[in-house]
């Protein structure tokens, strides 16, 4: 019998049957229709599959789905409700807004990793400066070389974040 795990996915209680040892990434994408986290390496080296587990950035390709049992998982799709949000008409997570403001993408395949890691960083360190931001993002990959706009976006997000928090 296939075991079932229960966890909170983007605020919603979720139960899903899993084959043991299947990484969380595959369960999210193929069984739960969550497409924000993407497969880039399956080795924990690129960050494309990043989700937040209990608020900590985790590489879902390298976390067995069992490991997510009884946790709170947030994906790119759940950021807007997690907040902090912009006040604009179409309320977005401030990090997502900053990425749009800075036009921070080429193909965008890597974006999930940068956005999710930036959220985890700014939740822990809203005062992060250039060096701390670069350091926190240093083990993410972007093959297109969109780093310049991504760095601008995360810095802008830090500013927006401090504003909404005030």
């Amino acid at each position, binding site marked *: 019998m296939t075991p079932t795990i229960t966890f909170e996915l983007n605020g919603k209680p979720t139960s899903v049957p899993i084959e043991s040892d299947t990484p969380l990434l595959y369960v999210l994408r193929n069984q739960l229709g969550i497409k924000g986290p993407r*497969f880039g390496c399956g080795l924990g*080296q690129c960050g494309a599959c990043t989700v937040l587990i209990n608020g900590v950035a985790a590489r879902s390709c390298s976390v067995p789905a069992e490991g997510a049992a009884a946790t709170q998982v947030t994906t*790119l799709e759940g950021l807007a409700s997690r907040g902090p949000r912009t006040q604009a008409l179409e309320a977005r997570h401030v990090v997502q807004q900053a990425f749009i403001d800075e036009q921070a993408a*080429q*193909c*965008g395949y890597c974006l999930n990793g940068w956005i999710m890691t930036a959220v985890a960083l700014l939740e822990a360190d809203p005062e992060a400066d250039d060096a701390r931001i670069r*350091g926190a993002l240093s083990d993410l990959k972007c093959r297109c070389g969109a780093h*310049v706009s991504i760095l601008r976006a995360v810095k802008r997000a830090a500013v927006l974040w401090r504003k909404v928090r005030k």
Partner: protein
Amino acid sequence: MSPSSPAGGFWTRRDFLGVAGGLVVLFSAPPSLRAQAPVTPDWKESIPADRVDSWLALLDDGRVVAAVGKIEAGMGVSTAFVQIVADELRVDMECVVLVMGDTASTVDQRGTGSSNGIVEGGSALRKAAAAAHHHLLGLAAEQLGVGVEALAVNAGVVTTTLRPGVGVTYAQLVKGRKLELALPKGVETKSPEHYRYVGKPVPRIDIPPKVHGSYEYLVDFVLPAMVHARVVRPPQAGATLLGVPPDFSSPGLIEVVTQGNFVAVVCEQEFQAVRAARSLVPRWSTPAPRFPGSYGELYTHLAAGNPGVSESADTVGSVDEGLQASARVLQARYEFPFQSHACMGPGCGVAEVKEDSATVWMGGQKPYSLRRAVAKLLGLKPGRVRVVWMAGPGSYGMNDADDAAMDAAFLSARVRRPVRVQYSREEGTAWDPKGPPLVVTMRGGLSTTGAVTAFDYEARGFSGRLRASSTEEPGDSLLGQMLGGWKAKSTDRFQFSTETYRFPAKRLTSHLLPWDHALPTGLRTAHLRDPDGMATCFASECFVDELAAAAGMDPVQFRIQYLSDQRDRDIVHAAASRAGWESRPSPNPAPGSAATRRGRGIAYAPRNGTTVAIVTEVAVDTTTGRVRVERFVVAHDCGFVINPASLQGTIEANLIQGLSRALHEAVAFTSTAVTSTDWLSYPILDMTEVPQAIDIEIVNNRPDRPSTGAGEPATRPIAASIGNAIYDALGVRVRRIPFTPESILNQLKPTPSA
């Protein structure tokens, strides 16, 4: 399309069959049309390019469908298309829905490559939209009973000053009538001073959905009853398959598919396929080594081996006599390695092959040629094959996307289910077609006064197009090569630099050595962003710097003195003045402390009508050998810019990817296998290495200049510019890419005295 997208959108309905006759044709709905859909689809072999209705359709709800044979590679070209159509048709961008790269519904524009998206796709759409606009004005004039000259269009509503308050929408005009219209030869397009979107920094339409996770990538695509496959590669290059264990079993396994040297597992669930591929151990032969054992051996082979074909270009005067008559002769050898596309997501392809038809969803740049290859592979007529592009990760040329699509088609035909193939990271890095290596021997002569007397460029490489720049034949794909029995449509592509220096004697020669035995391996070669451009420019532009240094001249002045093309002189000048270039010869007389030495370098290159110059400022740590680029200054002339915001992003990304290639990237191999298999063994640039400053100067951005493309040109001069800056900082030349700490430290070692 997503109704919430701020501007424009993408047609993601998979039942969309095109804009034939100005009507949007849906495959499954509405029912009236569905009834007409034949059981066996016979998709059009080609969509006529000379019909307006091949490019555009007007929907009843006021939306405009624009169909183009190009694809979005991540640089924002889809937004440019929407800008152009909205401008010419005088509608809001929000009303334009885009369809790209579907063989059944878009004109065959030979796919996307060589930075031609805007050049070809944009101009075709502009003409079609302008023609549609004129046609609609004619209809409106009739309906409103006034002359065309009394009409104005705003946001898709036609009004006339003669009858205030009366207006008619495009949708009302075409209602019940097909927009069947031949594309007239000379069609009058909107005058640039009236552009509402074109030339403006309009936000990219693809970015909000990408940021929200709602942009549909190929990897997200799911078909009912779809199964999952993984390919199993031989451990050694050129190994032949001896067999697979007959009793192999694994959870969810549908079939172990083998043919020739191709092995794949097909399973019900994706991770089951990953597991099965890991646990299946086929028996392989132990082949003779196919590769040189090291880069040293490779470069020696290139420098000394017999070329299959050679060609000379740009021959002026007699180089040999010029060199003989020189007071000083300089000679240097430049070396450039194999590089991987190493796309962010390894190859993916989805295919549904039925008895007598096939549909393939692919993420590569050239769906039309792939259709021919799939048709041949499956023995179907091209009209029975539909290839649909969906967004992949950035592809940068001929990456592994076509290979994955071919695998999917083959496997779907074998198991008669829709199949999704996802490559592993190892396949994405070790098995993609590689950017080719190059060895260039440069020779130059100087007179007693430091004037250049002769310039000789001699490149020796493998054909950059052993794999054609598109997948035309099954043999062009890794699948065809593994199956055996298919021939690759390889083409020779000579490797010349493109600079426009005029010297009294000048010769460019390119020799191509055979490399066919690398075809079914991870060192087969193909186009990688700006094919050969970075390598050829690295040699010629660094050597020009060597000549300038030997002549005791400032590198910028030296270039301007010898460049024959005014635009090239201007671009070098523009970069230097934006950079605050201090006129002096290299090396830097005051490079800073012994531990950290600073320098600046310049390089320039033209590419297909675009010309780019880059000034690089570096700091080199002499104890670790680490090179840090502190600042890039780019002068970029690609003529009229459709979207300055996208252009900035594209240039920045070229710089960063180019910096990564110059500092870090060389595919590692042994004599029997590629050993770069992941991000640890094929490192790329990380965020801590991104320069603190990037200044971009856009030159000649005027509507009277043709738009000449920007997807690749800024890649070309990067390695040379960095190399020249390293020389300025250290006073030593590093002539091998990548500029790793080891290679810098090697150069800094005191030369053992003879």
